[in-house]
């Protein structure tokens, strides 16, 4: 299970980082969300992965899941949700005000790509 989680986290983080580095606001916001999803699962994994184990004292339990990362991850989810909402509103505002969704608040002045493509 650990290996699968680790590989999954790696893939999600890599996708998130790729999107964060894009030049349009919407992919950047998506990328930041993906990275925060990966981080949330990583926090849970830091408390060791245990399936079917109770987080609080239960008579006859063989082992326990660590409850603290579960509490931490709740806070982290709420904060990243709020931050994503904020930056999304900001991106929409910039789009309304400048007519462009480029992260620099306007289309680049000089466009010189291969074969004349932007």
């Amino acid at each position: 299970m650990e290996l699968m989680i680790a590989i999954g986290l790696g893939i999600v983080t890599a996708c998130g980082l790729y999107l964060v580095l894009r030049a349009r606001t919407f992919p950047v916001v998506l990328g930041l969300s993906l990275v925060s999803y990966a981080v949330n699962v990583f926090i849970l994994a830091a408390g060791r992965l245990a399936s079917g184990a109770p987080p609080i004292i239960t008579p006859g339990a063989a082992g326990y899941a660590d409850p603290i990362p579960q509490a931490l991850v709740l806070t982290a989810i709420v904060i990243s949700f709020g931050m994503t909402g904020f930056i999304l509103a900001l991106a929409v505002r910039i789009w309304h005000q400048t007519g462009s969704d480029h992260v620099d608040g306007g289309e680049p002045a000089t466009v010189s790509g291969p074969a004349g493509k932007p």
Partner: protein
Amino acid sequence: MNHLLALPIVLPAFTAALLLVLSRAPVVMARALSAAATLGLFAAALAVLAQAKSGTPLVYQVGNWPAPFGVVLVVDRLSAFMLLLTALLALAVLLYAVQGWDARGQYFHPLFLFQLMGLNGAFLAGDLFNLFVFFEILLIASYCLALQGLLVERLRATLHYAAINIAASSVFLIAVSLLYGVTGTLNMAHLAERMAQVGTEDVPLARTAGLLLLGVFSIKAALFPLYFWLPAVYSNAPAPVAALFSIMTKVGVYAIIRVTTLIYGVDAGVVMELTSLWLLPLALVTLALATLGALGAGRLATLTAYLTIASVGMILSAVAIGGVAAFSAGLYYLAHSTIVIALLFLVGDLIGRSRGDMTDQIHPGPQIPRKATLGLAFLFAGATVAGVPPLSGFIGKVMVMQSAKDAIAIVPVWTVIVVTSVLMLVGCARAGTIVLWHVTDPLPAGPAHAPRPGEWIALGALAAGSLLLVLFAAPITRYTDETAAQLLSPASYVDAVLGPQRDGLVRPHTTGGLR
């Protein structure tokens, strides 16, 4: 229990919430409440400082849950120093803002108080996760404050600022969970104790977590190569907000000091002095590059933004040199630079407002009214930043240089500090000469707003703060010396938080790495 320690967080939080409810109330009422809360914070900071001065860190257990199981607020001399500095800066900034500026942006007062709540919380937090939470509070308040007015440049700068900080928050969480995975705790005192017992196989993880934390705090503090977001944000933010932000980079510095002295401090065994290899070169490069940026600045606000980065380079150089004298010098410089950079932002704003459409661009323009007084204010601020004797910048820089006397890196440290001081003086002199003396038109084109009396008082208060740092340099350095000594013996902090006897603590899980 000493409920005074919770006041710096609770007071602004409740006042801000009240102001949100009363957002339709007349602006006079918002100003009165905001001023009352800020004065209350100042009084609370003074009372906390008086208690923390004795040397025993004060601990507030939220909900009376004992550490390390509950949330603790801890005040040692460093936290009390930062609380008082924040309250003083907030008073001056608020006085400037209520002269009419605050009515332009909606919700200025609640956001201002939420920002203070986040700052105070970050200085009080006794565990890493709450440090993260308070960072987020001060960041989201700062995004909204930087946006006030919704100009396109502000929107663009804030988008970059928000994006880099959200990414940084993810890295912060990764570092925090790595530390939790290795040690099973997030309470900083408990971490300090556990760090010495980290098993060999976990050492790389502990070191990774420490360096990730250093990276995150470097983004907040604006250390090379992570400072590129700062000039755009600070120079485009409204002047009172930019002045308040002069303490924001210092929160990053505070976090670096706290983590390197406590968690990765002298008692941390194999992972101690984690950052010693990186911090000094990066801080000196920051200082040098920021000074070059100040030389090339096109606006007074950009000049001040680069000087903010330079001050961070200076303080972190002192922190990297290490030892009581260097930490003490760094803290003195921290207080000096926070006050003077706020002053420079406000003076730049007043000059810019007097020049009509030219604003604060460093370019020949119209003659400004009250040239002598504004010019003298700019001269004073510039000379203090550059370190002309006998002003506070001079004392701070000499203290840092003296503390490097026995360090191996004395040659680079002294060279960079002396050369950058001269260049800062050149940069400020150039800006002042062009803006104030290169007069092309007798009258400004476009609207020019004269400074109001309250704004002069705010400026005067900040200038007086800088002068008081000189006049009372002896008692202040005595306090910073004691602070440095306390930072360098983290055992007293650990004992205060966890109590002297702590054998019965259970580890949440058995030893071993992330399996």
